[in-house]
């Protein structure tokens, strides 16, 4: 079987996608109303992100609600307009409004399998429409290519004339993955692909993503709030908080040696099959600030046990530690004795 390979045999070296200073903003309500409420009118969902995605890797972007991870995914895919910053894909700058070939190279799988497929289109029509509009294969090969795509995700060709409603959640997600792969992308962004599925079905989709990476050499960016999934599937993790990346490191390095207090709190909060003592305080108290009112200086300082004056004055940069170039954290106390003394996560310390 000729597996559909990613398009545009990439130039081979350097990161696949580089984003610099990426910002995405939304206007909330009316300017007037915002002034009355003394809130910002502009919601900075993504607030200056620098990110590289290497070819063939699986990068996870984790964060909680309000972190901006979904917005980042949509901005990279080209669905949401970018307010500032630029993206360079395979050496070429991505234009603000993408055309043709650029569109195809980054594709997305969405979270909700029940609304991400058009209920009125059969699987076959869905796929053939994409194949034809983008001329991915010659017209005569559209149907056979569709069948290959389905096989790739583990569905038989009997799925072609079927409507989404005839499928279970897990199967729908597979259709969604097949659809994303139809355009032969180089980068697949999966936004919480298994959150809406039953636990036992999640495994099939995760296994599928892992196998697709191996078979197709696909680069994967996984958005998830579930760190167990991330640990299973990805080799590098970026942790986001209120629109910024606060820590970026290879997976095992991040989980065994987190440098940013937010990451440490996140890890400590994960429930495990081996419970800690219930007398401890929760990993982190209070609610995250509203993205409309991002704190000055370090945006995490309002909930950070280490906060000092410098955190109020200066916004820390995402910088690497002396020992590990691949591990970066945006904290004034990262990679120092003070950072190591912070309460370590209870989970993941094997």
């Amino acid at each position, binding site marked *: 079987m000729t597996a559909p390979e990613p398009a545009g045999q990439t130039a081979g070296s350097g990161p696949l996608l580089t984003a610099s200073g990426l910002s995405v903003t939304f206007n909330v309500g009316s300017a007037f109303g915002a002034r009355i409420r003394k809130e910002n009118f502009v919601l900075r969902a993504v607030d200056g992100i620098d990110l590289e995605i290497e070819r063939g890797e699986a990068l996870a972007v984790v964060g909680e609600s309000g972190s901006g991870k979904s917005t980042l995914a949509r901005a990279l895919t080209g669905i949401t307009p970018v307010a500032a910053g630029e993206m360079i894909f395979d050496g070429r700058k991505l234009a603000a409004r993408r*055309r043709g070939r650029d569109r195809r190279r980054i594709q997305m799988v969405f979270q909700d399998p029940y609304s991400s497929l058009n209920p009125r289109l059969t699987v076959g029509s869905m796929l053939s429409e994409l194949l034809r509009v983008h001329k991915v294969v010659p017209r005569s090969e559209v149907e056979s290519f569709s069948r290959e795509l389905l096989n790739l995700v583990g569905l038989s060709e*009997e799925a072609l004339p079927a409507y989404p409603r005839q499928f279970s959640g897990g199967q729908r997600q597979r259709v969604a993955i097949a659809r994303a792969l139809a355009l032969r992308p180089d980068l697949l962004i999966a936004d919480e692909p298994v959150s809406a599925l039953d636990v036992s079905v999640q495994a099939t989709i995760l296994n599928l993503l892992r196998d697709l990476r191996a078979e197709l050499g696909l680069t994967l960016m996984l958005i998830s709030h579930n760190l167990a999934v991330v640990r299973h599937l990805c080799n590098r993790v970026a942790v986001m908080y209120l629109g910024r990346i606060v820590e970026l490191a290879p997976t095992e390095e991040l989980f065994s040696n987190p440098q940013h207090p937010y990451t440490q709190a996140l890890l400590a909060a994960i429930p495990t099959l081996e419970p800690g003592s219930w007398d401890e305080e929760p990993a982190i108290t209070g609610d995250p600030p509203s993205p409309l009112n991002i704190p000055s200086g370090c945006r995490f300082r309002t909930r950070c046990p280490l906060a000092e004056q410098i955190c109020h004055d200066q916004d820390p940069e995402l910088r690497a530690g002396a020992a590990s170039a691949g591990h970066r954290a945006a904290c004034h106390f990262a990679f120092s004795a003070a950072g190591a003394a912070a309460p370590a996560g209870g989970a993941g310390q094997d």
Partner: protein
Amino acid sequence: MSITAGAGDQFAPTGGALVEMSPRPADRGVQARRATWYKNPALMAGLIITGIVLIAAIIAPLITFYNPITQNLTDALQGPSAAHWLGTDQFGRDTWTRLVYGARLDLRIAFIAVLFPFTLGVVLGSIAGYFGGWADTIIMRVVDVVVAFPFYVLLIALVFVLGPGARSIYISITLVGWVSYARIVRGEILVAKRQEYVLAAQSAGLSNTRIMGRHLLPNVISQAIIYGMSDIVQDILAIVTLGYLGLGIPPPAAEWGSMINGGQNFLSTHWELTTFPGLAVILVGLGLSLIGDGLADILRPGQ
């Protein structure tokens, strides 16, 4: 015995023929709906009533025996008899014949007349809902202006300006009637465009036209169709009213409105001249409304 991979999953490539999936309520929804359409009493009653009238209109020459237009003054104002089932009018024309041919005229005009505002309204509503911004603002303000006028006032004014005849009826009804469809479709699209499959289509680089036409519209059109059913009734009433006021299809054409008008002078003596066309209007209105109700039941989203 052990179950190997994919056995329960009938779409798995290792499986054989498509096995009937254990029915999930959500899956069976539409099949169940399609299967029970003929069990819906409103829909069936509506279809029967409207069907009878439609068939009568179509086979008009077979069930009538006179010319609907030719005057025959010697036979004027006869009551119902074996020769003239419903009697004759003041010009000697057989009422039954005029009734059936009136059905032809009124129904034809109404069914065609509903299509233009439907199309115009759906297109403008889609544009307003999908693109938002200035397009939305402009279109919706025009809608507000049109809606501010009572339907008949505007209709009559337009027909008056354009002169009597079928063509001016079509134009006037279109210009006045599109607004409801626009509102309905705009509302549906505002909701539907947030669905993730629209985002998926956008991320796949499909053009806006294609997304609107192929992806969004089929999912939102059912509400417009249901409204269209009641709109046909409204159009029939409008046409009949125009005819009654002398602004519709000009005489001597057999048309229910002008028949009602013509017969009203003879209400005390030959009440059938006015009453039967009126009853015909009611009957058709009833039939179409029932169809609309039945469709609304069936096409209602969800269970």
